[in-house]
C-alpha cells in the first residue's frame, strides 16, 4: 500500500481476506465469539427476563447433559440432523444447491410408512426392514434425480427446483396422512398393536441403530469425498464446469449421480426417523432439519467430522432453549433468542476467521 494511494481514498474500514488462519488464530477468534455471546446473552437475560444469567446457563447445559436419557435424545436428534448434512455434502461440494433435503427426507419417510402400513405383519421382520429401507432410499433418490436431470439437460435453476419439490412432498404426505388416519382425529403411531417395522433396541439403547448408521456414514462420506475418483470429479465440477469438461468429465452424469446419492441418503434418513424414532409420519417428520442441515454442511465446509461438531452445537442450543422455557416458564420466543444470540456470534466468528478488518491509518488487525 503506497503512501500516495492511501492519501487519495482509503475507506475507514477495509475487509481483507486472510490467506490462511493459523490454528491458534481460529481458536482465539472462536473463544472470543463465545465469550462475547455469553456476555450479550447475560445482558439480555438479566435486563429483559430478570433472571440470573448463570442459573439460566446452567439450565441450558442441563437441557442436554443432566441425565443419560436427555443425552441419548440429543444424540438421536443429532443423528437425524447430521445424516441430512452428510447427504447434502456431495451436492454442495459440487456447487449444486440442493435446498430440497426436507422433501427428500419426507418422501423417504413416506415410503417407509407406506411399507409399514401395507406390509406390516405380512412379511417376516428382516424382509420388512429391508423393503422399508430400499423403498425409502429409492424414493429419496427419485426426489434427487428429478431436479438433477432437468439441471443436466436444460440447465434449470436447481435452488428453486429442489425447493419447490419440498412442497410437493409435503402435500403428498399430508394427503396420505389424511387417508390413513381414517375416522380418527390423528394418525398416531403406525402399527401400534403389532409394532411391525419398529426398530428393535440394540445394545440396550433405543436409538442405537440410528447412531451406528450415522457414525458409519460420517466415515464413509469423508472417504468418498476425499479419496475416491467420484469425489474428485465432484470437486472438479464444483470448482469449474468448464475445467471438468476439458478434463473429460461428463458433467451431466456427475450431477445426476451425485444428486441420486444425496437424495438417497436423505431418503435413508427418512427411514431411520420413521422406523427408529417416530414410528409415524406427518408433514413435520423432517422438522425443518432439511434446512438446518444446509447450515451444518456449509459451515463445516463439507468435512463430515466438523459437521458432527456443528450438529451437536445446534442440538445443544435447541435442547437448552427448550429446557430454559420449561424450567422458568419463559415464553419460548425468549429462550429461542438466548440460543439465537449464541448461534449468531458463532456464525459471525467465521467471518473473522476468513477475513480481517483494517482500519484507516493503521495496519493493526481488528478482529
Amino acid at each position, binding site marked *: 500500500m503506497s503512501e500516495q494511494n492511501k492519501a487519495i481514498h482509503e475507506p475507514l474500514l477495509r475487509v481483507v481476506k486472510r490467506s490462511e488462519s493459523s490454528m491458534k488464530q481460529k481458536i482465539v477468534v472462536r473463544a472470543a465469539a463465545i465469550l462475547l455471546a455469553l456476555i450479550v446473552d447475560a445482558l439480555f437475560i438479566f435486563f429483559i427476563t430478570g433472571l440470573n444469567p448463570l442459573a439460566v446457563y446452567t439450565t441450558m447445559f442441563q437441557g442436554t447433559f443432566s441425565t443419560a436419557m436427555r443425552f441419548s435424545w440429543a444424540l438421536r436428534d443429532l443423528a437425524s440432523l447430521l445424516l441430512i448434512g452428510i447427504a447434502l455434502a456431495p451436492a454442495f461440494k459440487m456447487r449444486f444447491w440442493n435446498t430440497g433435503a426436507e422433501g427428500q427426507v419426507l418422501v423417504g419417510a413416506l415410503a417407509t410408512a407406506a411399507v409399514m402400513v401395507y406390509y406390516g405383519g405380512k412379511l417376516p421382520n428382516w424382509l420388512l426392514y429391508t423393503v422399508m429401507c430400499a423403498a425409502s432410499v429409492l424414493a429419496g433418490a427419485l426426489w434427487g434425480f428429478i431436479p438433477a436431470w432437468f439441471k443436466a439437460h436444460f440447465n434449470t435453476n436447481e435452488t428453486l427446483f429442489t425447493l419447490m419439490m419440498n412442497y410437493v412432498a409435503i402435500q403428498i404426505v399430508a394427503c396420505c396422512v389424511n387417508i390413513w388416519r381414517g375416522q380418527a*382425529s390423528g394418525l398416531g*403411531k403406525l*402399527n401400534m*398393536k403389532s409394532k411391525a417395522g419398529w426398530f428393535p433396541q440394540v445394545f440396550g439403547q433405543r436409538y442405537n441403530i440410528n447412531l451406528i448408521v450415522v457414525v458409519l456414514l460420517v466415515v464413509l462420506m469423508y472417504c468418498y469425498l476425499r479419496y475416491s475418483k467420484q469425489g474428485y470429479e465432484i470437486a472438479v465440477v464444483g470448482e469449474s464446469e468448464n475445467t471438468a469438461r476439458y478434463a473429460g468429465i461428463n458433467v451431466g452424469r456427475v450431477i445426476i449421480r451425485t444428486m441420486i446419492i444425496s437424495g438417497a441418503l436423505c431418503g435413508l434418513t427418512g427411514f431411520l426417523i420413521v422406523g427408529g424414532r417416530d414410528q409415524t409420519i406427518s408433514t413435520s417428520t423432517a422438522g425443518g432439519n432439511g434446512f438446518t442441515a444446509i447450515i451444518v454442511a456449509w459451515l463445516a465446509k463439507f468435512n463430515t467430522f466438523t459437521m458432527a461438531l456443528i450438529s451437536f452445537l445446534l442440538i445443544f442450543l435447541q435442547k437448552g432453549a427448550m429446557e430454559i422455557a420449561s424450567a422458568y416458564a419463559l415464553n419460548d420466543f425468549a429462550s429461542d433468542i438466548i440460543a439465537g444470540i449464541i448461534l449468531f456470534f458463532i456464525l459471525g466468528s467465521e467471518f473473522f476467521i476468513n477475513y480481517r478488518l483494517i482500519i484507516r491509518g493503521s495496519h493493526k488487525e481488528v478482529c
Partner: protein
Amino acid sequence: MKKLLALILAAVLCLAACSALAADLKIGVILVGDETEGYTLSHINGVKDAAAELGIPENNIIWKYKCPEDQTCYDAALDCIGQGCNVIISNSYGHQTYMVLAAEEYPDVTFVSMTGDFAALTGLDNFKNAFTKIFQARYVSGVVAGMKVAELLESGELSPEKQPNSFDADGNVKIGYVGAFDYAEVVSGYTSFFLGLRSIVPNVVMEVNYTNSWFDIDKEAAAAEALIAKGCVIIGQHADSTGAPAATQKLLDAGNLCYSVGYNIDMIPTAPTAALTSPTNVWSKFYGELFTSLMNGEAVAADWAKGYEADAVKITALSDSCAAGTAEKVEEVIAGIKDGSIKVFDASTFTVGGETLTSAPVDMTIMDWATMTVAYAGETYEAIVDGAFEESSFRSAPYFALRIDGITEVK
C-alpha cells in the same frame, strides 16, 4: 398440660404427615399450548388450584408447554419421570398414543391422558382417561341462547318481516355453530347445545361450520362471519380461540342481529355486547380428586367423567345482553340436570332420519384405520337407557356421534 402437649404433638405429627404425603407427589403436566390459549390455560389453572388446595408445593409440578402431538410427548413424559414425577398428565387427545407407550414402560407411574378414549381398553392399571360432562354445560348455554332468541322474537326485533334472512323456508330461526372437527366430541357438544336451545324455542335449525383446527383465530372468525351472512342469530362454538366471538361482536356493531356463545373462557372482554356466556370445564375438580386419591394411595378409576353433580362444569357469568329471567331459568335447568329430571339427550326431544331413537348401540373398539385392524377391542353397549342417550357413562370421552334432524354440517 401433658394432654395439651400430646394434642399439639399429635396435630403437628398429622400436619407433618399430610405435608409429607403432599410433598411425595410430583406431577408432570404436558400441555399442547401455553397460557395464551384458553383450553390449556384452564388446565394450568385447574392443576394449580387443586395443588394449592391440597398443599402440594409449586416446585413439585413440572410444566411442559407447547408439546406437539408426536414423539415429543413421549420424550416429555420420560423427562418428567427422570425428574422424579410419579404422575404424568397430558391435556390433548393426540398425546394419548404416546402416553400409553410410556405407561407400558413405567408401571409405577400413573399416566392420565385427558380427553383420551382407550385407557380402559389397554388393560394397564396405571393409564387413565378423564373428561368432564361438558355437554351438560353446553345444554345450559343453549338454554341461555334460547332465552335470547325467545326475547328477540317476542320484542319483534327478530321477525320474518324485519330479518327475512334469519328464517328458513319453514319459518325456523337459523342458528350457527363453529366446530373444530367432525368427531364425536364436537358432535356431542353441538347437539347438546342445540337441544338446550330448542327446549326454549322449538322452531330452530342449526348449521355447523368446521374449521378443521382446534385453534385458529382467523378460520373461526371466517366461519362465524359466513354463518352470520347466512342469517344466523346465535353463533355457538367448539373451538379454542376468541375468533368467533370477536367476529360476532364486529358484525353486531355493524348492524347485524347476532350473539355469541363462547367456550372455555369468559368472552365478555372479547365481545362485550355480543357474548352471552361460555360453557366451561372446572378441571380443578378432577385434578383435586386425582391428587387426593394418589396421596391417599387409593385406586384411580380408568375413566373419570363428572358434570354438574360434582361442579365439574359450569357456564361463565351471564352478560348484560342476556334476556331477562335467564339466570332463574339457568338455575332451574341446572337443578333439573342434577336431580335427573332433565336428561340432555332425551330421545323424545330429537329424531334421527325422521325416526325417534329406541336403540343406539355404541362400539367402544378403537380402530387402527391405516391398516384397518383393531387397535383396542372394546365392547358394544346399548346407549339408550330409560328413553335417553347415555353420554360419557361407558367411557369418559364423548361418543354421541349421531346426526339429528334439524342440524346440517358444512365441511
